[in-house]
């Protein structure tokens, strides 16, 4: 059994963004309460806005070449997530050493659909903003392409591709390995699961009568029976509270950027 020794500093910063000849670094507008790991990559010409309390894990990549990227408050962007697209068609065609993670379906679908002026007009006035709203979780290896709009409290698990101009509704969940097609729209409170485009179902949001035990307890204690609670809502609130705790913990653990170098 042996413990690994920390790698030399030069080894860690192998990403091309740190070399002077690398692509332009995106102008960052970060809320002071956000936590951004030192190895997160921000490239591009458009600004990247990061809201309060957001946590960005190491090795997450932001490519603001086609338009600004807005990340709202309280989001978690996991490692190897890609927000935006690298110049060219997709991240997978990029000759950088850390680029081969883009799933191949991404490149094919973008190639087909990128004939719109928004894409060719990269750097020519047309811009496509990528919006990630409040309390969004984005899992490892997931890709959010330019023009996508992820609404608040959505969960995007690992290895997901949100294609261009797709719209993910509030409180929705895209399960691992799924894709949201170009211009696709996921309604709010929806779960997308399965392979490829996947199946969908509504999240349970029905108002439930209190459990029998609660009824009995209320009778024994001679208290009014509590009103029926919207079950899905409670679960969702609890999930968001756990997320808040997770962000607090992560904020303490992740090595923040700017310890040595200022963005």
């Amino acid at each position, binding site marked *: 059994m*042996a413990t690994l020794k920390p790698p030399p500093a030069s080894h860690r910063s192998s990403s091309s963004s740190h070399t002077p000849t690398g692509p332009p670094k995106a102008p960052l507008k970060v809320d002071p309460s956000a936590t951004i790991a030192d190895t997160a990559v921000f490239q591009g010409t458009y600004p990247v806005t990061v809201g309060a309390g957001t946590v960005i894990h190491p090795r997450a990549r932001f490519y603001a070449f086609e338009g600004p990227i807005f990340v709202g408050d309280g989001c978690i962007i996991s490692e190897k997530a890609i927000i935006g697209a690298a110049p060219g068609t997709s991240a997978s065609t990029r000759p950088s050493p850390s680029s081969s993670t883009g799933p191949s379906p991404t490149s094919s679908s973008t190639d087909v659909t990128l004939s719109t002026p928004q894409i060719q007009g990269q750097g020519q006035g047309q811009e496509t903003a990528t919006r990630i709203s409040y309390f969004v979780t984005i899992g490892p290896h997931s890709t959010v392409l330019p023009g996508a709009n992820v609404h608040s409290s959505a969960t995007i698990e*690992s290895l997901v591709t949100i294609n261009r101009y797709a719209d993910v509704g509030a409180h929705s969940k895209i399960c691992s390995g799924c894709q949201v097609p170009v211009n696709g729209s996921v309604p709010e409170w929806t779960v997308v699961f399965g*392979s490829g485009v996947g199946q969908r179902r509504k999240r349970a949001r029905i108002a439930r009568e209190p459990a029998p035990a609660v009824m009995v307890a209320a009778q024994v204690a001679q208290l009014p029976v509590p009103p029926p609670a919207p079950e899905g809502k409670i679960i969702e609130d609890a999930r968001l509270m756990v997320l808040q705790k997770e962000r607090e913990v992560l904020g303490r653990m992740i090595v923040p950027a700017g310890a040595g170098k200022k963005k």
Partner: protein
Amino acid sequence: MPPKAAKGEYIETDTGNKISRRSQIHGTQHIILGGKTVIQAEAVIRGDLYRLPSTASTDPSNPPQPSNAPSVAITVGRYSYISKSAVLRPPSRLHRGVHSFYPLKIGDHVFVGESAVIEAASLGNHVHVGAGATVGSMAIIKDFAVVLDGAVVPPGMVVPSWCVVGGRPARIVGEVGEGYGVEGAEGGMARERYRVVGRP
């Protein structure tokens, strides 16, 4: 950095671990490798997400002990193989109002495929995780189990020994055959796999 560094792609440690120079390992002091483990390029290993020593909630009664033993985030056994772009991150959960990370234990002779995302509590010995598979938070994969390519093992699932799971979400789709994991046979190629890594 060119893809083929002149010094060789892999760093070999005293215990025979072969670690790619382009691997993305965080928090190395919280990672234990059993030896003869291969970590390929761009694999992300989140050793920085370790379990914090008892936080402020337990302070009044018993002061936190000086943590001389570093808390371990990720343990990997012998002859395990972490492919390119795989992500190993310790699972986390809320327990008694404290959100903490739990150690991720990986056994011996384990194969983790390309771009797989592992958030499991434990992977047993001789486990095979296919490319692009996801193992959800706090899942437990027992010895000699096989997770097929692209499978999504949901959080908290326990995969029994000798089972093959696949699909999204993952279900048990079969069993591994007789003699699986025997040295040199199917599922028992870990030593061979290790030997060929980094050879010119």
